């Protein structure tokens, strides 16, 4: 017999063993079901992990893209220490002016102040705007947020404390429907504001919430109309040239602000600087936690599934001794017996993997709907699931399979 025909024969016999494995699994439905269920749960968790990690990554990239790799956000107060009673209104117009004048590399410095939950009306329609942002000229540019119509806030708007505003896309839809909001006047808590620009639809923010339901006004107008503190504001958006030197930019800004705030060396910063890097860092710790939690779950589920498999197969091999003995008597070589049992194990884990993937996708979809997790499914999930299930099938199936194959024909046949 040539080597080739021998290989072809082995392939054919292995294929036939697969058919016998299928019959045997079907004949032991309950046992098979247990194994499939165990593996499916493990693979489902694995699917969710992979999808959630990818989702977090996509989210991070989106957030970085929106936040801008060349930008920093300075917040009043130290968000790390969160000392009780610490002042959060620590950034002054003086700070902004100095940064604008003398911070190397910075080309745009935009202070921001916010008023939440303002009622807005137009022609009988009323809506609650969760966030009204007061800012200086160049808001749309500072946030890389193009206008779909109209114009950005100007220096003149600021100096005049003009009653003008930019409108978020969602509110524009709510109040004006398909009409253009440009040039129209809305009532905000009873004082009129003319809409001069409309922000394009953005979907998500750096913080993860909705962003298209806001109105932007000159900060001067906002403080005046809502009687807010006049000297300080809450946040400062700074854009830099040369984003590759971001860490140097940030350090310069930190020293400058500490100097302006007269902080002694032992004192903590009374402000916080956020950059895209920080967002990524935060997300990677979040991702780490997620991988750990779901990873442990998946591992436990799969090991349990694997042991269930090993035990049931052990019992199965015992129950099926005479069948195995018969096959040996009819001339089955040991490797064919081994192959059949291994294929039974791997077959079940693969079925479990496929069910688990669907289950994982359904659960992931649900978690995404409930906004618990960001989810991104990719072919990677299939790769992981197939590999993991194959490994489990082989590892846990090997022992019972070898036991079956190592029996002598007569001890198998006699069943003792």
């Amino acid at each position, binding site marked *: 017999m040539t080597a080739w*025909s021998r290989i*072809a*024969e082995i392939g*054919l*016999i292995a294929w*036939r063993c697969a058919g*016998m494995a299928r*019959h*045997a699994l*079907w*004949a032991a439905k309950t046992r098979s079901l247990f194994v499939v269920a165990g593996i499916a749960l493990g693979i489902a968790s694995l699917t969710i992990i992979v999808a959630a990690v990818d989702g977090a990554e996509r989210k991070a990239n989106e957030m970085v893209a929106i936040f801008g790799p060349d930008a920093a956000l300075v917040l009043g107060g130290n968000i790390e220490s969160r000392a009780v009673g610490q002042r959060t209104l620590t950034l002054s117009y003086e700070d902004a002016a100095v940064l604008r004048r003398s911070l190397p590399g910075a080309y745009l410095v935009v202070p921001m102040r916010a008023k939440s939950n303002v009622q807005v009306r137009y022609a009988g329609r009323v809506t609650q705007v969760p966030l009204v942002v007061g800012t200086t000229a160049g808001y749309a540019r500072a946030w890389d947020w193009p206008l779909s119509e109209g114009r950005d806030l100007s220096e003149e708007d600021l100096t005049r404390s003009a009653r003008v505003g930019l409108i978020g896309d969602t509110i524009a839809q709510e109040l004006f429907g398909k009409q253009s909001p440009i040039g129209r006047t809305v009532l905000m808590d009873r004082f009129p504001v003319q809409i001069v620009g409309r922000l394009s639809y953005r979907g998500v923010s750096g913080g993860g919430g909705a962003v298209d339901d806001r109105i932007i006004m000159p900060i001067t107008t906002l403080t005046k109309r809502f009687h807010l503190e006049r000297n300080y504001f809450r946040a400062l958006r700074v854009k830099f040239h040369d984003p590759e030197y971001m860490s140097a930019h940030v350090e310069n800004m930190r020293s400058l602000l500490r100097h302006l705030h007269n902080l002694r060396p032992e004192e903590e910063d009374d402000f916080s600087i956020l950059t895209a890097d920080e967002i990524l860092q935060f997300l990677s710790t979040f991702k780490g936690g997620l991988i750990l939690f779901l990873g442990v779950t998946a591992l436990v589920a799969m090991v349990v599934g694997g042991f269930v498999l090993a035990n049931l197969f052990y019992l199965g091999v015992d129950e099926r001794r*005479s*069948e195995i003995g*018969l*096959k*040996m*008597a*009819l*001339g*089955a*070589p*040991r490797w*064919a017996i081994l192959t059949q049992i291994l294929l039974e194990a791997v077959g079940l884990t693969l079925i479990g993997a496929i069910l688990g993937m669907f289950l994982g996708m359904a659960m992931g979809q649900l978690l995404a709907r409930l906004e618990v997790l960001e989810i991104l499914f990719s072919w990677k999930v299939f790769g992981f699931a197939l590999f993991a299930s194959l490994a489990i099938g082989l590892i846990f199936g090997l022992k019972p399979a070898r036991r079956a194959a190592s029996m*002598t*024909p*007569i001890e198998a*046949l006699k069943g003792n």
Partner: protein
Amino acid sequence: MSGSQPIIQLQNIEKTFLLGDLNIEVLKGVSIDIDQGEFVALRGASGSGKSTLMHILGLLDRPTGGRYLLQGEDVANLPDDRLSALRNQLFGFIFQTFYLIPYISALENVMLPGLYGATPARQLKHRAEELLTQVGLADRFHFRPGQLSGGQQQRVAMARALLNDPQVLLADEPTGQLDSATSAEIMALLQSIHGQGRTVILVTHDAATADFAEREVLLHDGLVQDR
């Protein structure tokens, strides 16, 4: 090798089972020669070691002493995969308790020995159908063993034993669980199998059944009396 050499030569075959510290000597030096095409009955009382001897003949078990020459070759020297191939190609087995796989059809049971070889599935199926028809089960191809009578199950087992066209048929009490009429049919089938030129070795405790054979070997107290 000459054509007149016996296909099976047993020389002082011994088989001792170890049960704890108890030695059970079942075969104490059995010597038999069986020629190609013979029909031999192996007769003995219950517990005399007939099945044990048949398992050794069929390469299912190894003797603890003596030599077994199969077609002139000492089987003690054969590697494991060669033994499987011989069980598959040279021997056909019929057991007292049928040993059919319960969850597949009669046809699939008959095809089983063929699945461990290179014969195409279509050819196997055709051969299995032919054999089942020969043993009178043309209308029972797709029945499960549980849906067949004892005699029908034994006929399925006989068809299975013949699938790979073996030279030697080993039958261990093939009629042990059957009534006399059915037994007679099974014995007639065995005779026709012998008529095809095959070597048939029949194990039985019953003198009347042994009479179907050309030659009777009596097993007693672990030794044989050839008659």
